[in-house]
């Protein structure tokens, strides 16, 4: 499965936080939750509608637990966007376990002539970070430093 920025959203809900930016994400499956959280966060920083999936990159991550894995996944996408600068408008999480993840993303290099940039996210915090299985699937809360 692939989640595309142009799929009907919204992927995330913004929650009230005075200084920073909080997101809530729900999805029927864990891979989908990771994909939605990723695109939801990237969409805060750049207009993904103009980001073409020209180039595909493989992503493999390992972490100490599932919450840390979600943190590292978002942090990875953030760093790619800021350091590449490479934006992704398609994400596919092929495998996600308690402590590891294998995925790919598709996108292109940021071009300020074509891409509108919004808020800069400084970091993905661990503050009140939560990832839980629910009756309908999975739910997560992430607070970003903006």
């Amino acid at each position: 499965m692939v989640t595309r920025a142009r799929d009907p959203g919204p992927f995330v809900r913004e929650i009230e936080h005075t200084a920073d930016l909080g997101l809530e994400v729900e999805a029927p499956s864990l891979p989908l939750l990771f994909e939605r959280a990723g695109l939801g966060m990237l969409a805060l920083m750049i207009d993904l509608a103009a980001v073409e999936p020209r180039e595909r990159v493989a992503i493999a991550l390992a972490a100490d637990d599932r919450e840390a894995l979600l943190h590292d996944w978002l942090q990875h996408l953030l760093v790619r966007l800021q350091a590449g600068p490479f934006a992704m408008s398609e994400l596919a999480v092929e495998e996600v376990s308690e402590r590891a993840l294998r995925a790919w993303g598709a996108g292109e290099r940021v071009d300020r002539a074509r891409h509108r940039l919004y808020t800069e996210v400084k970091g993905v915090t661990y503050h009140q970070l939560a990832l839980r299985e629910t009756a309908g699937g999975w739910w997560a809360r992430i607070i970003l430093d903006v």
Partner: protein
Amino acid sequence: MVGTHHPRRLTVELQRINDYVWEIPRQGGMRVPGRIYASEKLMAELRDDPALEQVANVAHLPGIVGHALAMPDIHWGYGFPIGGVAAVDAEEGAISPGGIGFDINCGVRLLRTALVADDLRVHLDRIADALYQAIPAGVGSEGAIPKLTRAEEKQMLARGAAWAVAREFGRTSDLEATEEGGCLRAADPDAVSDTALERGRSQVGTLGSGNHFLEVQRVDEVYDARAAAALGLAAGQVTVMIHSGSRGLGYQVCDDALRTMGRAMARYGFSMPDRQLACVPLGSPEGREYFAAMAAAANFAWTNRQVMSGLAERVFATALGLGPAALRFGLVYDVCHNIAKLEEHAVDGRRRRVCVHRKGATRAFGPGHPALAAHLRPLGQPVIIPGDMGRYSFLLLGTAGAMAETFGTTCHGAGRVMSRAQAKKAGRGLDLVAELARRGVIVRAQSLGGVAEEMPWAYKDVADVVEVVERAGLARRVAKLKPLVVVKG
């Protein structure tokens, strides 16, 4: 879309000590009491805010001495509250990256000029455009400094603001007016990860987004003419204020350390109520490595602000056809408000070496402090307190009171009262640029959404915050500065 968020709301027990000081008594795992500086009005707004619980959480830090402190601009942060201060024993205490924040050495500088605001009015639109063009915001923009090589970047991290001065951004005298001379000697560029180095390489001289800004201002009101004159300021004069930090490099140093410390802290027998408060002993290998990387990130931030000062000066020179002698750009002072510093303070009647974490709080050393340059020693340290972009900012001086009560610390800004989503909602349907123009402020910004998030109604009135720190004796007012031009990322 805005959902409803119900964070765990502990009603924190609060005792009033005097008109401006409130105490959270020790309870549970708190090692010291908490103390909050606030007026009754500000406290009423805070009563249900998770920030108070965060002050209690900070009091759990191993080795913390005195009180876990919060300044009157306190608001809910991640880990530490914003406006939070904690001093830990330099030998036995813990260092916590969450007590400094992602934006290491986020700070503010104030530059004076020889220009008079009334003479500049007709040029302001042009200057606003030129500043917006000259000061890149960040991701994907072409900076004034071409992407550095690894070796150049490491040199810059070791040298700090002097690296920029050597490249003709500003002048040597600026360094005397910068905290630590614009360079923390503890910096070790080799303690900075490759990812952090990569994130920083093309960002020297970039502003960033969010609440970062460059403003052209007018000295609106002077409260202490003698001190203002000693700092080269008088009513009606044009100043430039820059608020920015260590950009992607600093953010990554923080993230790297949180990961490392999250794993290491159990080994040291530490446990904290919030994962974002991960900490290790200052003297441990992880603690020393973070301190060296944090210092390098701080040096990045000083270089960044120094480069942007130079860029702003060039814009004024070109726009007005004036040389340096006529413009007389010079730094009043540069403060950091997200940092940990090793300092000596009196604690319970004896001198102790402590590591002071300041997250959204500003050093405010009083008169006579040896860390101040000779021209500032009789005055006390200048402290720059930016307000929201529609109102005003303040220049203060540090006091003996701050030395005695708050480890030489005061507030850092207005403090948010509205979330970004609420602020956007409040601005819906309004022409925000016209609204600011009505207040006499010209805005140039990359994103209108960003402007909405930073509108005056999203913040406390900084005058209320400054009144508290002045009445509590933590700083004193020198001048009020009104924005004429605001440039935002």
